[in-house]
């Protein structure tokens, strides 16, 4: 199997972290990977906040039911609504920017996996509380958190659907269509 496919399969959502801090250079490199993701119209409306302050982490955790395992760092993926609208209209703001965030997120999590760092995407957070805690200006929309840290656990891969049940060549529903 190719190295990249191996890494893609190895990445897991991990919800249990060790206390060890992560070097800021490593965290910055994860965001470097994020900005090399494709973005609709190359608008790059994404904005990133790296949180590694323990007090702030504790506060964010209190308002984020989807966040588990006390990670030593969070990458908050946001987008600039004004910039996305200015360059991409309603489509750019409401659709492209969120797709871009997803692509950036996968880059972050794959590089984390390569660096033997555990990560987990987290959507279940309270938007209003996060905006307040991070002092986000009106134009900045928080879309996804990614927890990052070192971990002892290697959870088994959650079930995936079989490829032949969800993927077709050419026409919908035609199995073994060669």
């Amino acid at each position, binding site marked *: 199997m190719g190295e990249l496919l191996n890494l893609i399969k190895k990445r897991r959502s991990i919800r249990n972290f060790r206390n060890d801090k992560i070097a800021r250079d490593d965290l910055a490199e994860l965001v470097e990977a994020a900005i090399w993701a494709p973005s609709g119209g190359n608008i790059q409306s994404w904005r990133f906040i790296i949180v590694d302050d323990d007090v702030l982490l*504790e506060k964010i955790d*209190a*308002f*984020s*039911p*989807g966040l588990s395992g006390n990670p030593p760092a969070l990458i908050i993926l946001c987008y600039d609504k004004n910039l996305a609208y200015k360059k991409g209209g309603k489509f750019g703001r409401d659709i492209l920017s969120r797709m871009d965030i997803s692509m950036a997120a996968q880059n972050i999590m794959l590089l984390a996996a390569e660096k033997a760092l555990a990560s987990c995407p987290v959507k*279940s*957070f*309270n938007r209003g*509380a996060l905006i307040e805690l991070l002092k986000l200006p009106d134009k900045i929309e928080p879309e996804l958190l990614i927890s990052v840290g070192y971990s002892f656990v290697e959870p088994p891969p959650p079930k995936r659907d079989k490829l032949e049940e969800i993927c077709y060549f050419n026409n919908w529903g035609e199995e073994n269509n060669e």
Partner: protein
Amino acid sequence: MSELSQKEVLKLISHMTSSARGLIYEPKSYGPFRLIDSIIKLYQTLEEADVIKENGETDFDEIISELEAVKRDCLEEDCQEDCAEKLDAIINKLVVELNKEI
């Protein structure tokens, strides 16, 4: 001396309130997961603050570890019946325990 700080109480209330808010639009199966998560957090907070009187016989650790197992499973596909059964068993134990206390 046992003591539960305002900070810990606030963290619990914030967590539970955020869970309730999120659940309005989240999948139905997240409900039991969030409630069990809250129970575990509540118990851990009470235990760390050393506010649970040790004169009873109830083995809270056992109950919590059973709840942890249900929490792990309850987001799996088609887990409803299994989780309902496991929660029923825990509830039966709780009835016995509470009968001893009251």
